[in-house]
């Protein structure tokens, strides 16, 4: 039977149960005010059944009375000794107690009158002995990839040195082990890696320099003391996801757990104690829903963890409504809320990874100054397989050279304004190595929108005198956005507002995120991302293209409007003023011109007049280049002026030869004998004719052919035969009024050939002798046009 608020009804005979303050903390006798609601989860029937957890550490005392019942050999291995028995090495200092202590927190058996009760006291617990010897990349890889189809949760309470000057993380084999585990572990659901966040408070370390807690594959867990205060050792970090209890100051109560040599201790502390607690809570959630993927688990932690009474001066609410801090991530984990979520959880959509372009703009980081670099992320909107709209993890890959790395502090601000501290000053970090492609990770932008301006700020605050001649340099940085392209939470995942029956209130952080969104139809040019109004200028993202209007608003369009060209991806940019269409904004990138301008085909510029060496083509749009011999021309081969050294021969330019010769390209050769000048050999290449010859269609003839007339208009000696008007059969001058004879079916009338359909002749008439046309002629009536037409033959006959 479950009664809300009556956590005390569960009694265990384990001697330390009553003093396990972090298990049933909200009974008013303690000063802790909020609870991880572990008993609440138990009351719902979840105690970790069928879930397998392993502790990567210095071994596990598998025959400890409080561990032996739940010990699982298949979740255990000795990497240091390369055998299957993970028993720790015993020595006088009991230095190898760590693993056994962590294991007890997770799955110490309940009600067996030994020591404590584990958070998942029916889960299977194993241990990997891998810290008690040389830890190498290979040792870590072996540990992280132990039996991934059988083990569900790996808990690690170790990491690189917390000396405030180390930058280290998983090397290539360990990284591969992570990726394999995420991709294929738990039959494709992904292994769950829980990691203790940084622990180097006194040496002012920052856990962003710990590659394990900065990995998106690990759930980085912080600690808070019973009072909710920050433990002295805790490091702030943007990659921390959530927090569990541990101990802070010496006067704070600590964690109680199993200890080496079959003993029990109440002095376990540090984030080492917090990670296994989180592993135990996650085990309860996995029992509630064994099909949760590794990302589902992180989403559920984000949605259920609460700020509660945890003290942090940097609590902020991100744009999705989640409260988050660098000390505690999204707050104290809540086991009961997690199992409730898990029970009805719908798997989040497939993860998309968007690797934005690298910003290689080198910036000098001057001491006492800061550099600011803004990157406009699209969230890979143009690639549906990589499109990220709703964020999960954000990774920033940064390369910086710097004479003293510890003087750097780095911040990242999301488009929604959420600011994450990726790195704090580290007083003891004197390294000159800088950062080489180091991956900083923040969880603070969880569920925010990815697209927009991301601002990277790097501050250089020298902690001591430094050589200013070699300032730091931001070499390059790039964003890797992880998330989904569709809303990750189905309605079923939303909190049932009314039904909330939990023992402590759960804020619904998503409640007002976006509640004032426009809900009407979007403009057709909006992509399916959405909009905040009906017009094309209200789109969150454009389907095709967009351009900026005069007041800098973005207007979505199907195609780039006139006077614009398609710049990068979907953006339309303005062409040069005279261009109608272009391929770029420069004046020499025009494709067509506005009216009144002509396109110079050679320079691709728009001009009002064709320059020398160009002619305006037939359709009056383009200035085309004349043939190379022409200085000016009216057609490609029709020169009107020649280049220097050439002379115009008709409409062509050729090298000047003496009269009667032409330039064959090699030498001056004689023209045809009838040609006075010519542009080539042969009779029809004449330009002018010799005496007694007339130029007729490039040929020199002695008399004009039928259909040609001798043109007297040229004053000079050269005469030409020109073609008569098409209406004449023969003519004696230009135009259609100088015909001298007409083609059949036409009659000549005062030098004009007109269509004659009736043309009688005296001889044809049947009338009595002296027929009609004869009478017309006799009576001199041919002047009359009608009669003339009627009796044209008679009228034109002599006599």
């Amino acid at each position, binding site marked *: 039977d479950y009664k809300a608020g009556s956590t005390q009804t569960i009694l265990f005979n384990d001697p330390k149960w009553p003093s396990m303050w972090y298990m049933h903390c909200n009974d008013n006798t303690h000063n802790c005010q909020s609870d991880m609601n572990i008993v609440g989860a138990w009351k719902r029937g979840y105690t970790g059944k069928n879930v397998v957890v392993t502790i990567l*550490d*210095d071994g596990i005392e598998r025959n400890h009375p409080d561990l032996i019942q739940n010990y699982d050999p298949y979740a255990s291995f000795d990497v240091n000794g*390369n055998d299957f028995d993970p028993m720790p090495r015993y020595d006088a200092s009991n230095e190898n107690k*760590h693993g056994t202590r962590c294991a007890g927190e997770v799955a110490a058996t309940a009600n067996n009158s030994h020591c404590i009760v584990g958070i998942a006291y029916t889960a299977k617990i194993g241990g990997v002995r891998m*810290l008690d010897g*040389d*830890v*190498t*990349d*290979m*040792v*870590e*890889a*072996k*540990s*992280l*990839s*132990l039996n*991934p189809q059988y083990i569900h949760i790996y808990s690690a*309470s*170790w*990491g*690189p*040195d*917390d000396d405030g*000057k*180390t930058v*280290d993380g998983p*090397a*290539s*084999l360990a990284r*591969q*082990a992570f990726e*394999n*585990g995420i991709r*294929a572990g738990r039959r494709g659901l992904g292994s769950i890696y829980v990691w*203790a*966040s*940084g*622990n180097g408070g006194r040496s002012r370390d920052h856990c962003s320099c710990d590659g394990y807690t900065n990995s998106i594959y690990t759930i980085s867990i912080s600690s808070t003391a019973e009072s909710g205060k920050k433990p002295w050792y805790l490091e702030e970090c943007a990659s921390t996801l959530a927090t569990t209890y541990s101990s802070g100051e010496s006067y704070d109560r600590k964690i109680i757990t199993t200890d080496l040599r079959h003993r029990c201790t109440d002095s376990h502390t*540090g*984030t*080492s104690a917090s*990670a296994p607690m989180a592993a135990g809570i996650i085990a309860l959630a996995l029992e509630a829903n064994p099909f949760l993927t590794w990302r589902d688990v992180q989403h559920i932690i984000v949605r259920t963890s609460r700020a509660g009474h945890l003290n942090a001066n940097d609590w902020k609410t991100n744009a999705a409504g989640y409260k988050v801090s660098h000390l505690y991530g999204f707050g104290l984990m809540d086991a009961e809320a997690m199992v409730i979520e898990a029970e009805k959880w719908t798997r989040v959509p497939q993860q998309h990874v968007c690797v934005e372009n690298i910003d290689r703009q080198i910036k000098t980081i001057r001491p006492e100054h800061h550099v600011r670099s803004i990157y406009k992320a699209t969230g890979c909107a143009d690639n549906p397989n990589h499109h990220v709209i709703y964020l999960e993890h954000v990774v920033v890959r940064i390369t910086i050279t710097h004479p003293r790395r510890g003087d750097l502090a780095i911040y990242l601000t999301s488009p929604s304004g959420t600011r994450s501290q990726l790195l704090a000053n580290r007083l003891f970090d*004197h*390294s*000159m190595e800088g950062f080489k492609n180091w991956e900083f990770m923040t969880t603070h932008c969880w569920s925010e929108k990815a697209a927009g301006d991301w601002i990277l700020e790097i501050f250089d605050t020298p902690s001591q005198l430094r050589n200013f001649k070699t300032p730091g340099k931001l070499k390059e940085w790039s964003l890797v956005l992880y998330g989904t392209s569709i809303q990750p939470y189905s309605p079923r995942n939303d909190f049932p507002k009314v039904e909330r029956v939990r023992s402590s209130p759960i804020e619904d952080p998503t409640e007002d995120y976006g509640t004032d969104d426009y809900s009407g139809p979007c403009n057709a040019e909006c992509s399916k991302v959405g909009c905040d109004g009906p017009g094309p200028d209200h789109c969150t993202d454009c389907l095709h293209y967009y351009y900026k209007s005069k007041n800098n608003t973005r207007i979505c369009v199907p195609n780039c409007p006139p006077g614009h060209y398609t710049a990068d991806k979907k953006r339309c940019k303005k062409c040069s003023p005279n261009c109608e269409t272009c391929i770029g904004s420069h004046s020499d990138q025009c494709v067509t011109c506005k009216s009144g301008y002509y396109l110079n085909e050679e320079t691709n510029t728009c001009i009002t007049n064709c320059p020398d060496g160009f002619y305006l083509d037939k359709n009056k749009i383009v200035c085309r280049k004349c043939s190379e011999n022409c200085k000016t021309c009216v057609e490609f081969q029709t020169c009107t002026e020649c280049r220097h050294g050439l002379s115009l021969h008709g409409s062509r330019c050729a090298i000047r030869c003496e009269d009667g010769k032409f330039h064959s390209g090699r030498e001056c050769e004689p023209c045809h004998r009838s040609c006075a000048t010519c542009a080539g050999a042969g009779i029809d290449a004449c330009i002018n004719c010799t005496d007694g010859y007339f130029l007729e269609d490039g040929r020199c003839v002695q008399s004009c052919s039928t259909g040609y007339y001798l043109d007297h208009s040229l004053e000079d000696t050269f005469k030409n035969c020109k073609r008569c008007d098409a209406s004449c059969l023969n003519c004696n001058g230009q135009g259609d009024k100088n015909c001298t004879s007409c083609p059949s079916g036409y009659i000549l009338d005062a030098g004009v050939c007109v269509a004659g359909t009736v043309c009688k002749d005296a001889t044809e008439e049947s009338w009595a002798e002296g027929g009609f046309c004869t009478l017309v002629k006799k009576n001199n009536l041919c002047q009359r046009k009608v009669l003339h037409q009627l009796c044209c033959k008679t009228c034109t006959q002599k006599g």
Partner: protein
Amino acid sequence: PACRTRVYTNHWAVRITGGLQEASRIASKYGYVNIGQIGTLKDYYHFYHSKTIKRSVLSSRGTHSFISMEPKVEWIQQQVVKRRIKR
């Protein structure tokens, strides 16, 4: 600042295609012992060489280094001690 020295061990991680037998054959050819595959990392093997220095600030050199010339050896890394702290 004090320069952090690397400590090389007499263990190697090697990537060899061709399966366990092939890996063992190549290992023994150069005096290594094939401890076995590294967890679930396919084609990655743990080689140990008893005749080289167990801990050294210098990476190991010798005839055994010619193993990297084997065509089937795609990748090899002498293991370095990493400093790991319990939290």
